[in-house]
């Protein structure tokens, strides 16, 4: 375990009865890094987040956050963390500004300082004009942005975001990504869990892919894609007659074929070239799409399953 890491965990296990939610993971996160936990629902991401945000205790293994043990130094660690939980936990009866003023008090920040920071953070979250509105009246995207503003009140050294954009529309997601990107640029260490591969590719310098409580791969998004996938992917959909008759005939053109219930994924270097070859065999796919490989393909390769069902 390196002592200069912002966060390090070794052999981390979380057990609920007979169910092992987290099954012995090792991670090490450096200051200034933007680190992702990618995996489907139920992979153990949230259980991991609870342990590394010094809320729940590991069943086995060891964690050090800022070099401290969360089991014995929970309050000290949490004072230096920002947490954006999966579900919004705002005080809906209070105004936007009062939500921040009250939350800052939990950190024993003087009222005057909270007010000053809150004003700046509302600017950052693009909510200044909604400061006096009741929180209940905000849209989903605004609530998320307010939650992020709230998590920054104590000027955390490490910001932990659990599924930050789940349930948001594309516009709200992009606005949120933009704000997170600014934080990253300002040197805040980010830990993000997500089951969206585009989110992980956008925001994470480095990530681990989790499946069934274990880490199945680790690296930079681009490096993982290069390591586990080809440059391009050709997606073929067949009509009423189904794809089965074509699988054998087509597979010789690809490095690897994934047969999904509704489509075939051909892992190839040059998608257009392979598509021409496919047509030459007499196969008539209803639709064909050439795209670059993504983390989704890495996950499929590693686990045999898709990320978002």
């Amino acid at each position: 375990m390196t002592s200069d890491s912002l966060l390090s965990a070794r052999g981390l296990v979380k057990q609920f009865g007979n169910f092992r939610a987290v099954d012995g993971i090792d991670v090490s996160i450096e200051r200034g890094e933007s680190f992702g936990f990618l995996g489907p629902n139920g992979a153990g991401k949230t259980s991991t987040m609870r342990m590394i945000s010094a809320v729940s205790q590991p069943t086995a293994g060891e964690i050090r956050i800022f070099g401290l043990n969360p089991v014995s130094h929970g309050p000290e660690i949490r004072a230096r963390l920002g947490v954006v939980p999966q579900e919004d936990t705002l005080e809906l009866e209070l105004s936007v500004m009062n939500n921040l003023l009250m939350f800052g008090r939990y950190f024993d920040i003087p009222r005057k300082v909270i007010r000053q920071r809150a004003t700046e953070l509302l600017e950052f979250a693009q909510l200044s004009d909604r400061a006096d509105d009741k929180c209940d009246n905000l849209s989903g995207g605004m609530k998320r942005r307010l939650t992020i503003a709230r998590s920054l009140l104590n000027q955390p050294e490490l910001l932990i975001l659990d599924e930050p954009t789940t349930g948001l529309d594309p516009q709200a997601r992009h606005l949120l990504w933009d704000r997170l990107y600014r934080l990253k640029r300002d040197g805040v260490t980010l830990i993000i869990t997500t089951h969206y591969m585009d989110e992980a590719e956008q925001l994470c310098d480095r990530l681990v892919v989790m499946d069934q409580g274990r880490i199945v791969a680790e690296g930079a998004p681009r490096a993982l894609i290069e390591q586990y996938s080809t440059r391009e992917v050709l997606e073929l959909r067949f009509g009423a007659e189904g794809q089965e008759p074509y699988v054998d005939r087509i597979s010789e053109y690809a490095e690897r074929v994934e047969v999904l219930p509704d489509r075939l994924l051909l892992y190839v270097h040059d998608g257009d070239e392979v598509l021409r070859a496919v047509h030459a065999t007499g196969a008539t796919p209803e639709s064909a799409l050439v795209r670059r490989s993504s983390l989704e393909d890495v996950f499929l390769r590693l686990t045999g399953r898709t990320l978002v069902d």
Partner: protein
Amino acid sequence: MRIFPELHFGSRRSLRILERNVVIYRTQWLMLVSGFFEPLFYLLSLGIGLNHLVGSLSAGDRLVTYAMFVAPGMLATSAMNGAVIDALFNTFFKLKVAHTYDAVLATPLDVNDIALGEVWWALVRGSIYATSFLTCMIILGDAGSPWVLLCLPGAILTSFAFASVGLAACTWLRSWQDFDTVALIQLPIFLFSATFFPITLYPGWLQGLVRCSPLYQSAALLRGFSLGQIGPSSAVHIIYLVVMGLIGLVVASHRFRRILTP
């Protein structure tokens, strides 16, 4: 080493929970006002109505009006209801609906701070209501002794005992439907605690049971204060309520830990 994490109740941070509740209740001031008027209405209606019907009755070594007899019982009941309702409904909401505590646990506060903070709040709320009740009681002439002032700490102790147990109980509630069960427990406690008439009017076998009721303990304590009849039994009532509150607090904290930090 923390062998008994529940026994570490030292954090000043628990006051932040009190602060939070005060801020939230400022947006619900109507509830606070209704809390002021409720006891006044009770005392007035009892004084006007039942005083004439019932006349006087003997309490200990003296003869008192019915209003003087029943007022401390009503104070105890009001302290119980206030504490239980707030501990159950509002805590259930924060614990399982709004996930307020999950947000709090992302700050330096701990589950013990949350449980303790909710108890502070129950004490503050209870003392506001008890003060208004006692003021009405004294003005209406329903206090039988200067010792009536001890009813204030007595009512606060009652709030503590019931709020702690309420906090613990709320952790076992699964949905709003379960609140019917609460009413099923609260009603017999209300009716069989010698709040409306002396315990000697119950049949012998029931008297023993009534004495076990926490509301009886509180009502008897407050009645003793109000009528100036303070004795060794007062100490027993106090010990009962203190122990009840402490057990409730430890259980509540333990349950909060299980639910909030799985």
